[in-house]
């Protein structure tokens, strides 16, 4: 491969992987079965698109299934959202270049809920930090944060350097988080836990071990928790004894026995309420409510459909949901979409709100100052677009969308 016998694309991809592996002291490559990549014009820029074309021209082909993360344009909405026609045309070129390399442009950041669920010990190369932490923690599969070029290179070579979460030694718990004093009734509460734990332990290799939860968490709750841990803490893995496969017990989560002096963090209802109380509301602007980042599952769509039924987004406000093509198709068939559309909720396909092309311009044009969401992740990551962001529980978000009043 390195000698170029398998073509220049494979050679270039492997050279890149070798440098990354060398940095981390990887001793070998390991074969992978699945890859998931981010690749949209907003993050690629013209230089990235040119690079994709170079790979395509060099004959790059995925050897294993590779899917794509959420992108920055839903073409059906681009004009209404005031997105740039030139950039939208480039987004189509990105999609075409990826498809020419046999990349499956599924455009979802919840591949772990909708597309592929790797088994215990399965090695994959996934991008979008939320997908990684879910794969490592909930499935017991093995992946590092593999960004767009890294996941693409892994699909082209069929392997990835063995470092980080590919190795047993990085998969052990590093501190305990006690949830027994937390009710955790709403998805946003799980995100708030992720914020509290992640912000105070920013480290890729910090692996929190959650104990004391009052009931088995649902997949969507683990999704919010994982996305927030990855976002605020840059974390790639967590354990929950009795829930996640590499932690049949607390001791097992720590790779044998938990030491007496291990750090113990306690999350209470009060600490979660303090998260909600901690946001600067500015002048109280409440005209943008977003359910996105990560995309919503069919279960979340059903729940929101029921909450919005018979209500209307207040004139002058915008309420956005983003999800995947598969979820939207199922939601339409099951009748969950109509109440949302009747309520004036914009349901966008294949995108995530915070990476929407032209978002800063959209913000200025609409005069939005605040963004309200039940996702702790998106509340964290949209900062560069100069939104003031506010985390609220799901029911509160629905009320804010329908009343225009921030509570």
């Amino acid at each position, binding site marked *: 491969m390195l000698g170029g016998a398998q073509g220049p694309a494979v050679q270039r991809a492997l050279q890149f992987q070798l440098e990354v592996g060398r940095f981390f002291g990887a001793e070998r490559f390991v074969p992978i079965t699945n890859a998931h990549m981010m690749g949209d014009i907003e993050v690629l820029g013209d230089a*990235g698109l040119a690079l994709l074309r170079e790979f395509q021209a060099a004959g790059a082909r995925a050897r294993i299934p590779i899917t794509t993360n959420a992108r920055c344009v839903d073409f059906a909405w681009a004009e209404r959202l005031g997105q740039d026609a030139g950039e939208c045309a480039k987004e189509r070129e990105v999609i075409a270049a990826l498809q020419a390399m046999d990349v499956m442009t599924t455009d979802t950041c919840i591949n772990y809920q909708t597309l592929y669920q790797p088994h215990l010990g399965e090695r994959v190369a996934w991008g979008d930090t939320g997908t990684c932490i879910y794969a490592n923690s909930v499935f017991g599969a093995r992946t590092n944060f593999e960004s767009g070029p890294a996941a693409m290179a892994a699909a082209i070579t069929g392997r990835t350097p063995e470092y980080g979460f590919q190795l047993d030694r990085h998969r052990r718990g590093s501190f305990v988080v006690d949830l027994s004093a937390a009710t955790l009734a709403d998805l946003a509460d799980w995100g708030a836990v992720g914020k509290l734990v992640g912000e105070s332990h920013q480290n890729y290799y910090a692996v929190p071990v959650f104990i004391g939860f009052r009931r088995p968490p649902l997949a969507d709750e683990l999704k919010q928790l994982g996305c927030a841990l990855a976002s605020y803490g840059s974390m790639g893995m967590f354990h929950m004894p009795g829930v996640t496969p590499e932690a049949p017990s607390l001791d097992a989560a720590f790779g044998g026995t938990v030491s007496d002096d291990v750090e113990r963090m306690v999350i209470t209802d009060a600490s979660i309420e303090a998260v909600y109380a901690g946001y600067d509301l500015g002048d109280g602007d409440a005209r943008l409510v977003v359910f996105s980042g990560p995309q919503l599952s069919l279960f979340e769509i059903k729940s929101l459909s029921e909450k919005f039924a018979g209500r209307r987004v207040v004139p002058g406000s915008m309420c956005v949901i983003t999800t995947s093509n598969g979820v939207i198709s199922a939601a339409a068939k099951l009748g969950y979409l109509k109440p949302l559309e009747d309520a004036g909720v914009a349901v966008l396909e294949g995108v995530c709100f915070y990476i929407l092309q032209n978002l800063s311009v959209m913000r200025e044009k609409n005069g939005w100052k605040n963004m309200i969401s039940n996702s702790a992740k998106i509340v964290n990551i949209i900062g560069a677009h100069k939104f003031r962001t506010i985390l609220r529980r799901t029911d509160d978000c629905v009320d804010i969308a329908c009343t225009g009043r921030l509570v």
Partner: protein
Amino acid sequence: MSVLATITLDRAFGPVVEGAALVSEEGFSPRYDLDRWSGLITKPGHKLEGQSIRDRICFFPTAKGGIAAGWAFYDIKAKGIAPKAFIFGVTNPVMVQGAVLAGIPITEGWSENPLGLIGNGDWVRVDPGRQVIELLRRAA
């Protein structure tokens, strides 16, 4: 030139570079914190809000979330607004993948916290091969 101070590194990639330091108390993400058209840190409340990373040797204690760096560093390099090097206390693979793709030197782990030792505008040399950062002169 005499070396005023030396920091040794745990891991490093890239060629030798010299430049003015930009030292942050706070972590970094190109997606969350950076305007990728101007090179300015724009996240409201970031400790370096309003500062440009262009041509700087950027010191950050941590990396924040974000898979975007993988492509974003290549993009900002092509736009001419990339820093000369990224120096992290603790980083994540995305930052490394992005820097390798873009050919921007990146390092992780330091023998001494640069906060207090190196000030904004101080001239430093990053030598990934020798895994050291050398303080060459103080800002005027």
